[in-house]
């Protein structure tokens, strides 16, 4: 039996490096890392700083706002078939206000109205009991 609300798309796996990130997402908080040695801010989570290789890293909460850096409207999906019923949808690069870049979807808008430079804010989709996925919608 297929449950009607079963989430069909790929899911992240919760592992030691990313555990805090997904736990925060569950609370609908977007968190980032900062290197305490050189100040580098990082997305996605890592166990050491990709700039200076220090492992002295802290988490902090992002303000949740960003700007669309680039986007594409996916019209055909043959690579990851589970997304096929979702077309057309936006797959985009968001520049977070903290200065890091993030791949995400822009939702709650007609995909044909998305523009580069558009201000967006994070929203969370609770896709399973454990996982909430950060996405963005127009401010």
């Amino acid at each position, binding site marked *: 039996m297929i449950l009607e609300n079963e989430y069909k*798309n*790929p*899911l*992240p*796996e919760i*592992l*030691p*490096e*990313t555990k805090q990130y997904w736990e925060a997402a569950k609370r609908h908080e977007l968190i980032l890392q900062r290197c305490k040695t050189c100040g580098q801010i990082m*997305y*996605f*989570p890592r166990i050491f700083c990709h700039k200076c290789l220090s492992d002295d890293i802290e988490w902090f909460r992002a303000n949740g706002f960003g700007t669309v*850096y*680039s*986007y*594409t*409207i*996916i*019209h*055909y*999906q*043959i*690579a*990851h078939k589970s*997304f096929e019923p*979702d077309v*057309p*949808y936006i*797959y*985009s*690069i968001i520049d977070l206000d903290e200065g890091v*870049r*993030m*791949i*995400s*979807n822009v939702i709650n808008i007609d995909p044909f109205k998305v523009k*580069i*430079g558009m201000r967006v804010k994070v929203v969370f989709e609770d896709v399973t009991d454990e996982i909430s*996925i950060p*996405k963005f919608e127009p401010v």
Partner: protein
Amino acid sequence: MDAKQAYEYGLENAVDFERDFDTIYGPMIDNSAYALIKQRYKYEFNATEEQFASVVVNARYHASKFPNALLKNLVTVKDVLDSRIICDPMHLFEIVMPCTGGSALILASSKQAKILKNKPVYLLGGGQAFDRGMWTPAYGSNPSITTSPVKKAAKQAFDMSDLTINDMDFVQLYDCFTITVIISLEDIGCCEKGQGAEFVEKTDITYKGTLPLNTDGGQLGRGQPYGACHFMHTVEAARQLMGRAGQLQVKDAKFGLVNGNGGSMANECTLIFGNEIP
């Protein structure tokens, strides 16, 4: 933990960053990655779809004359723009067609090459540059996705060969998508950043022109035999420099440039070839 335990822990606990911070958002592999680059390029430099389409028109023109090409029918700018959108703003005809094929070169020392039967081609310079290990252009070290590591790779290759872009009689550029060609042209120094789209529209890039580009039709014309496709640009460069390019022969070709690209403009390799050592 000892080395074996550490290895096993790693296998068990390795984060699949590609999946967890990209695939969950539904990319369409390389199509969406290059579409992101093209969209940004259009935004920054006001490039038009017609300009992008002229890369395809040129590729198909060469392919129509190339014996082993897959897509031998000529197309117009309008045909390209009328082809369906796969990942906006990428049209179907701006995307390579997979096919089977192979490529091979025979390598020898320059001393040995002199006594062989065929006219030799010399590798005069090479360069390689890398930006990231992931598909998506979002997670690179370069803050701009419209400038590529080609810039660094080409500089290394030119420095090694003591030649410049003005010495090149043709260029064979990796052309998985139209945007790849336009950014590569800028980054090897054919024109200023942001002028590549206008360059391909206003320059004669056929084998008879001022800067012959992808004289065998490139991947957009002759097809993309994945894995062999990077090398095919090198084979075509060798063919041109040996004078064996048939009706697509660039007249008096002495020097040529080849660029190979991987991972949505993430890693690049540029080579300079000549049929003489300058």
